[in-house]
């Protein structure tokens, strides 16, 4: 696709990025506050948080991801059609925060390619908004985190954990 076309499409997409309604934990409350009327994300076109991943443009992973939830997060990510972007909101999604325990994935970038990281515990709605602005810049340039990636990290993880079978690359 010619570059000019990508630029125009990116410009258009950045003004109506519809994230998947996917709040896991405390950061979800701040995400909902961003959707409220004081920190209004509707003025930037994002208030339509889609419930179905098929209709979404991307995912804001807000909260810690446990081992039980991890396959579902990956499945939701894969169900979102291209082009898609992921924003890791909060320290728990970036690196697991203080939950260095037996049940928590230490950062969802071990599972999915992440575009923007927003630190904080929880990040203020204004901080999340700054992260979304950075995300919108990437959308305008049509840059994705999975550019140049053959497989998402979760598939590699699974392949590593499963025993190697005959004729199958692990």
């Amino acid at each position, binding site marked *: 696709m010619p570059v000019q076309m990508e630029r125009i499409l990116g410009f258009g997409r950045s003004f109506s990025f519809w994230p998947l309604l996917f709040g896991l934990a405390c950061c979800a409350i701040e995400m909902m506050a961003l959707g409220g009327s004081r920190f209004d994300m509707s003025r930037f076109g994002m208030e339509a948080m889609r419930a179905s991943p098929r209709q979404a443009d991307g995912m804001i992973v807000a909260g810690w991801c446990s081992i039980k939830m991890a396959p579902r997060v990956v499945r939701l990510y894969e169900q979102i059609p291209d082009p898609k972007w992921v924003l890791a909101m909060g320290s728990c999604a970036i690196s697991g925060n203080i939950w260095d325990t037996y049940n928590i994935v230490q950062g969802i970038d071990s599972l999915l390619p992440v575009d923007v990281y927003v630190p904080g515990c929880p990040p203020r709605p204004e901080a999340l908004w700054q992260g979304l602005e950075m995300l919108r810049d990437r959308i305008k340039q049509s840059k994705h985190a999975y550019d140049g*990636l053959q497989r998402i990290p979760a598939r590699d993880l699974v392949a590593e954990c499963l025993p190697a079978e005959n004729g199958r690359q692990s």
Partner: protein
Amino acid sequence: MTSWIVDPALVKQCGELEEHFGERLNERTEFRGEITYLVRPIDWYEVLRFCKETAGLAFDQLDCLLGDHLPERSSAPFEVVAHLVSHTYGRRLRVKTSLAEGEELASVTGLWPSAGFDERETWEMFGIVFAGHPNLRRLLTVEDFEGHPLRKDFPLAGIVGGRVRTDLRGKI
């Protein structure tokens, strides 16, 4: 605030409990205004049923049931603690029992259905089996999780899973 006295009405009613069970109540402690009874695992269900069904005691709610692991006590390293609340009288009581490795305990889901999740979690975290529980499987961790996390010999960071893929960092 700093005087934690046991409610005298509760002491009187516990007298009834002690009369009925006598020697089978192994120990009784009072700390910060709370009464704790230690019973043998065989008497667990009967003592709790008496607490619930006797009119004077009327402990109609099981506030929580939890497990504990004391590895320094090698003869009976596990403990199950039940906290009872009486809404009619506004009183609390604690009943506990000590278990050896592999010993089973009767389930109290017949008395208080809220023990269902409690006992599942206790089994999951400590490995204490509750005989008669309708649905004793993993509750909070994945179904094929190996090990009992809250035991003192289980490492906090876990044995498998959840670790960060540092080799992928920077390549994405």
